[in-house]
């Protein structure tokens, strides 16, 4: 075990996979000096044959990944902020997520796209989006949202070994948080949620950057005698429905916390799945705690107002458990 920051854990995962497999190639804007930090030192170690700076041209970055992957490489594309996925959206929406089906399964696209997402740093609307819905709705993309350094390393390694396109989204701000990472080979499978805290009065599914306030909310609710189970899905595609349903079976109550905008959010998806497959387990309404349908404002007070925090999560859980067990 070593204490490592999340972005360093990603770097470590990438480096290990580059060492394991000479076909792993990395590119992106400013990856050599690694402005984000998640590839720091990779260029010194592997040189321009394995990692290189590109011009600013996201359309081509995502499109080129498809061709390079079809040519037998595992491509790691660093896209910096998730908002730049819009700029590179053509190949994501029309190629990466579809080409395997369109070719009748002839092609494999082992592509790992890394990008940071979310607000909280006064980066304003064009550098703060949480773009799950767009990716999850495409059908052919895995989406991982690590919340701890250990998971970050394990998920990025799983992504790079995958034969399919995977998005590894780094929660903005959490990149700087440290945690223990197991020594030696450490892989985290896709589609397996982690129970971050056990409880029996309500299930809180907390995605990405929302894990921290959710755990804080759970801790504070504990002092009120409300025992909250906190689940971290770790990957949104594939999604561990069984884990959520099992927890709701125990608690009867579901709160989904998602930094994405409310409309068509991952929270909406989780709620819909449970309203369909776990309806009889529910003792009351499913609550979503999300960002309202707004662009993220610059002013820190306004930003804090729209992005879910501990207080709103506490309120939602309280509202949920205070309802009568009997439905009207």
């Amino acid at each position: 075990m070593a204490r490592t920051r999340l972005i360093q854990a990603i770097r470590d995962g990438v480096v290990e996979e580059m060492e394991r497999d000479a076909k792993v190639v990395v590119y992106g804007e400013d990856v050599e000096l690694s402005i984000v930090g998640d590839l720091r030192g990779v260029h010194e170690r592997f040189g321009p044959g394995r990692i290189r700076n590109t011009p600013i041209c996201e359309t081509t970055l995502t499109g080129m990944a498809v061709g390079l992957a079809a040519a037998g490489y595992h491509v790691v594309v660093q896209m910096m902020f998730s908002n730049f996925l819009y700029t590179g959206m053509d190949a994501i929406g029309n190629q990466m997520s579809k080409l395997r089906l369109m070719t009748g399964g002839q092609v494999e696209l082992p592509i790992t796209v890394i990008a940071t997402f979310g607000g909280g740093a006064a980066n304003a609307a064009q550098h703060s989006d949480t773009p799950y819905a767009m990716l999850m709705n495409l059908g052919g993309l895995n989406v991982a949202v690590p919340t701890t350094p250990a998971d970050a390393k394990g998920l990025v390694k799983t992504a790079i070994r995958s034969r399919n396109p995977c998005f590894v989204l780094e929660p903005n701000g959490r990149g700087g948080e440290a945690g223990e990472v197991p020594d030696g080979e450490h892989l985290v499978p896709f589609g397996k949620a982690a129970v971050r805290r056990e409880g029996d009065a309500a299930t809180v599914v907390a995605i990405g950057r929302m894990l921290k306030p959710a755990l804080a909310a759970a801790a504070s609710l504990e002092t009120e005698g409300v025992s909250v189970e906190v689940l971290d899905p770790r990957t949104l595609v594939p999604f561990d429905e069984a884990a959520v349903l099992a927890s709701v079976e125990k608690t009867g109550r579901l709160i989904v916390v998602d930094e994405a905008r409310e409309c068509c959010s991952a929270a909406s998806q989780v709620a819909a799945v449970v309203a369909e497959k776990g309806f009889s387990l529910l003792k009351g309404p499913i609550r979503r705690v999300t960002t309202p349908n707004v662009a993220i404002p610059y002013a820190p007070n306004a930003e804090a107002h729209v992005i879910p925090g501990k207080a709103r999560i506490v309120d939602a859980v309280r509202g949920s458990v205070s309802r009568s067990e009997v439905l009207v």
Partner: protein
Amino acid sequence: MTTGLDETAPGGRLGGGPTPSEALRLYESMVLIRRVEERLRDDSAAGKLPGAVHLYIGEEAIAAGVCAHLEDRDYATSTHRGHGHFLAKGGDVRKMMAEIWARREGICQGMGGSMHVADLARGILGANGIVGAGLAIATGAAFGAKLDGDGKVAVCFFGDGASNQGALMETLNVSALWGLPVVFVCEHNGFSEFTPAADVTAGRIADRARAFSIPATEIDGNDVTEVWRAAGEAISRARAGGGPSFVEARTYRIQGHFEAEPVVLSGGRYRDPDEIESWRRNDPIARFRARLLSSSVADETALDGVEAAVAERVREAVAYAEAGQPADPELAEKLMFAPEEA
């Protein structure tokens, strides 16, 4: 608009061009594409094909002349008008036909159709329904080829309309910077759908490549030997590590944008029938046939033999497609993700 082509070059010169056997293969390649597409045209009109088809009739010299220099290991990206590239690059005509017929036996198991025919084993990275998408895909494949370092190349076919997508400039830049073995082949057929090129394409397309100091040439795309020569030069340069090249081949689309055009247009007109006629007279296959005969590279019997053999292949391909099984309706759900290693 001036095309920059030398239309007065003597018709018969094969000197320095393809050898006689290469020339016959070029002829065969063009005729195969033509006969396949004539059949698709008729079957589409007869309502036998489920989806739209975009035909390449009149433009065959480009695919044939370029792909003559390619091996299976080389890559090619194609367009919505992709049958010609698929066939010229060595794709299986039966499997392509079965694909367009939406058969399980199709090259993409019926999942892709006309606009997505691909044969990865032959480096055919696929026809593509997104105009301009092939540019970045080919550039990525060329990057792979460069990293492999074994002389492979990637060719990107795209239209004059596609040349207005910013992806062109982006990929010219990247391929120039990284010295990638990619050949950009612009098939300038004068139209994007119903819009004349002059309305939507400023300047000379090849100049866009020249702005990056990429060697660029403008050629008569209906002269297969000229295509063969220009492509050969560009592809050799790429194989030898000389980086990207750009070939703008002037040609003309004889059919409509797609076979539903007359219905969709419902009387609207965007080109002069005389213009179509004049390009018919500039048919690349007829021109090449005449040249083969006049230069005594082949006689009528030999060429008729090629025609007959091609006709038989096409008949067989259609029979294969007709006799095929419907696609597996549940395949999509199985195919989206490649199975992960345990």
